[in-house]
């Protein structure tokens, strides 16, 4: 009964979503206040209904109801309860339900935090979101129903994919989806503005916090995915240029361009068409990512069950949503004015270059991802595009973009003086050269790429710190008194510098050794001694493990015990590697068990990863910057002013 209620709630949501899309958009077109008023309650109803069906699916997992096909495939009676809960989004159908929960959740958030917006605008935005929700609901109900029953019910479930039995899984997909789906809000704002024919600074100001919020979730989601792949796959890599990774990275790149472009549109009313196109593209690329992952068009380490019907449906959904938006763009864009003029050298022009670089980089990654498909479609054989292509294309594009990070914030809007800008960049340049030359020497091995990376990071970091100090001196106030959106920008840029340090040093100085270790044997790796004590068997909740005991020491001083594992999950087919990591913020020592060899010896893989934590710390800083930016006073102030105005009016009446 419970799963049927969940299913029924989803069907109801479809009708509410369709009604919301139809009624509110028509109301906005005709100026009918009653119809417009339907937008907010409908958003609330959709969110409640989807939340009910989500909780009911989770309930089926908790009580181990294997008569629900999705539960039987993705769970098992021996699976611990927290993984049973996370297993709700461990497979295709449930992850779509999570997607819907977030889609309706974002729409509900828009209905809550849009008091200062004109009701017509809110109606259009929520109407567009309702139509998008309806599209995904149709997809779920017609091709991927998570509540489908299995008759007869099996005694035992097939277990969750062991790769996914990890804390990483609990948080990675929700964060990523929050990002993907969040961009649908920005998309809806863009479509609403195009429909109304009002592409102006106000539209950009309303969109900005939503774009930044979606972007910060996407940033965290990608970072968490990378961290998860790093310690769970046991290969020691943190980014693989895998099609699924790329399909989250491309929207991130375009989304980054979008938040910068929105800044220009808000402050100077320029780039309006470009911004609107970016807003459409970001969401379109999120949809494309969903299509690529779910349709099985590309092969990837992320195995989702693929079904041709799903691919066809998603492609149609993609075609309708993006095609109609681009058509609307083609009709409306020519009437949009050009906005504020600016000189060849100004903050606008610098941001334009940044936008172009990011867009080209996104295009290059997308091209590499889809290239095997193009070649196959043209009958030219089967190929795969690997990391060499991506590194070759991506790195040269990012170097000028990173250089600009320091330049943009010190250049004036409208018209900047080259001499003034250069004067402010003397110190960053000096620090960059010193650090770039010095760091490789500290590590004892010269590498031009390391020098370049470190110099860029130092260049950005110095400029950020200088910018903050200058402003504090000019305003004669402390760090906390500064506007949060301004601080957010600097923190995010600093995060980028930290990220670059991590990437550069890992790529430049990581080492990897495959060692044969017999019990009692000590080997030296990356300046540490590792003593192998042997391997014992252990039994987990739903797996049997072989656990290695390795003593880590340096210069004869014992540091700690490390326990890399090899697990065999009882109900699935994969043996899993659980790595042991010794981390201290400046480096990781990463130990993975390989294969058993003769006489109790094992092959052991030891990686030395300098500064790898900085990659993820950098991402967290970027997200933190985004969080600061959306918590800025001016967004809260508007609402309070409006509310006091309303109260004053009511008092008068």
């Amino acid at each position: 009964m419970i799963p049927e209620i969940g299913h029924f709630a989803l069907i109801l949501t479809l009708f509410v979503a369709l009604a919301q899309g139809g009624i509110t958009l028509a109301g906005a077109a005709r100026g009918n206040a009653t119809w417009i008023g339907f937008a907010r309650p409908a958003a609330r109803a959709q969110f409640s209904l989807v939340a009910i069906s989500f909780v009911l699916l989770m309930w089926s997992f908790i009580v181990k109801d294997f008569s629900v096909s999705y539960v039987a495939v993705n769970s098992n009676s021996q699976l611990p309860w927290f993984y049973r809960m996370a297993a709700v989004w461990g497979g295709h159908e449930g992850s779509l339900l999570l997607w819907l929960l977030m889609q309706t959740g974002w729409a509900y958030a828009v209905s809550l935090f849009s008091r200062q917006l004109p009701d017509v605008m809110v109606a259009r935005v929520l109407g567009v979101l309702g139509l998008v929700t309806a599209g995904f609901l149709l997809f779920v109900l017609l091709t991927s129903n998570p509540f489908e029953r299995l008759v007869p019910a099996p005694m035992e479930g097939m277990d969750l994919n062991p790769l996914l039995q990890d804390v990483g899984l609990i948080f990675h997909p929700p964060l990523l989806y929050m990002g993907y789906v969040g961009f649908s809000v920005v998309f809806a704002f863009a479509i609403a503005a195009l429909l109304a024919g009002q592409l102006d600074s106000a539209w950009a100001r309303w969109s900005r916090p939503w774009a930044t919020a979606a972007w910060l979730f996407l940033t965290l989601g990608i970072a968490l995915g990378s961290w998860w792949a790093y310690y769970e796959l046991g290969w020691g890599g943190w980014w693989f240029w895998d099609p699924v990774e790329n399909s989250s990275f491309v929207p991130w790149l375009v989304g980054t361009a979008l938040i910068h472009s929105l800044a220009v549109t808000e402050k100077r009313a320029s780039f309006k068409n470009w911004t609107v196109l970016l807003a459409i593209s970001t969401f379109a690329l999120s949809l494309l990512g969903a299509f690529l992952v779910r349709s099985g068009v590309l092969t990837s380490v992320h195995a989702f069950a693929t079904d041709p019907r799903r691919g066809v449906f998603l492609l149609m959904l993609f075609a309708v949503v993006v095609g109609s938006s681009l058509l609307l763009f083609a009709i409306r864009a020519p009437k949009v004015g050009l906005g504020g003029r600016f000189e060849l050298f100004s903050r606008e022009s610098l941001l334009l270059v940044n936008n172009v670089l990011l867009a080209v980089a996104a295009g290059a990654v997308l091209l590499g991802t889809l290239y095997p498909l193009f070649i196959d479609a043209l009958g030219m054989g089967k190929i795969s595009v690997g990391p060499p292509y991506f590194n070759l294309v991506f790195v040269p594009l990012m170097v000028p973009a990173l250089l600009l990070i320091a330049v943009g914030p010190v250049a004036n809007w409208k018209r900047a003086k080259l001499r003034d800008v250069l004067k402010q960049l003397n110190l960053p340049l000096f620090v960059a050269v010193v650090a770039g030359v010095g760091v490789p020497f500290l590590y004892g091995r010269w590498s031009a790429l390391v020098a370049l990376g470190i110099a860029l990071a130092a260049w950005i970091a110095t400029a950020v710190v200088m910018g903050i100090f200058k402003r504090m001196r000019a305003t004669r106030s402390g760090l906390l008194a500064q506007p949060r959106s301004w601080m957010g920008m600097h923190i995010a840029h600093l995060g980028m510098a930290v990220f670059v340090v991590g990437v550069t040093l890992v790529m430049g100085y990581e080492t990897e050794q495959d060692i044969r270790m017999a019990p009692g044997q000590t080997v030296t790796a990356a300046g540490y001694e590792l003593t192998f004590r042997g391997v014992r068997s252990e039994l987990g909740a739903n797996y049997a493990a072989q656990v290695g005991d390795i003593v880590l020491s340096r210069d004869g001083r014992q540091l700690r015990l490390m326990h890399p594992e090899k697990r065999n999950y009882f109900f699935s087919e994969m043996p899993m590697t659980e790595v042991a990591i010794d981390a201290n913020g400046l480096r990781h020592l990463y130990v993975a068990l390989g294969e058993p060899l003769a006489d109790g010896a094992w092959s052991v893989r030891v990686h030395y990863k300098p500064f790898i934590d900085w990659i993820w710390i950098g991402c967290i800083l970027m997200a933190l910057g985004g969080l600061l930016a959306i918590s800025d006073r001016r967004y809260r102030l508007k609402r309070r002013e409006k509310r006091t105005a309303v109260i004053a009016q009511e008092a008068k009446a």
Partner: protein
Amino acid sequence: MSRFLFPLIGFVVLLGFLAFGLTLKPSEVPSPLIDKPAPAFTLPQLANPGETFSPDAMKGKVWLMNVWASWCFACLEEHPVIRELTTEHGVPVVGLNYKDIRNEAISWLNRHGDSYLVTVSDTQGRVGIDYGVYGVPETFLIDQTGVIRYKHIGPVTHDAVRDTILPMIRELEK
């Protein structure tokens, strides 16, 4: 208006490729081993490790080599289909027990039935590497002269037996 149509045009081209992509199956990477002689090996038999087995013993017969392991859930799923192949259709199937523990493999066969002509132990997975095994289960169809004719990736299904594997075997046996 024209230049504002470019995004739409680009999108339509992309859609065309994606739609075509749906008709392709990239996961069906052709095995380089098809129509090549099956790699030779000599491995101990699972039931009595004193005895060995090598593919030469099957010369003159059309047979299947089924890669399985006791830790593999999908192998359990295909197990009834394998039994059907051996009992109802009389196809000789040799089991390659892949990266498994001997006792567990034997008790798995005791529990679920053993219809293999013989099962050999590839504890280290060396032979698996020669055959390009990248997931269990996989099944190879080998002809009278010891040439690999077909490779089935994943659990063998009734449909695959009826539509592909049996017709190929009957054709080869002519």
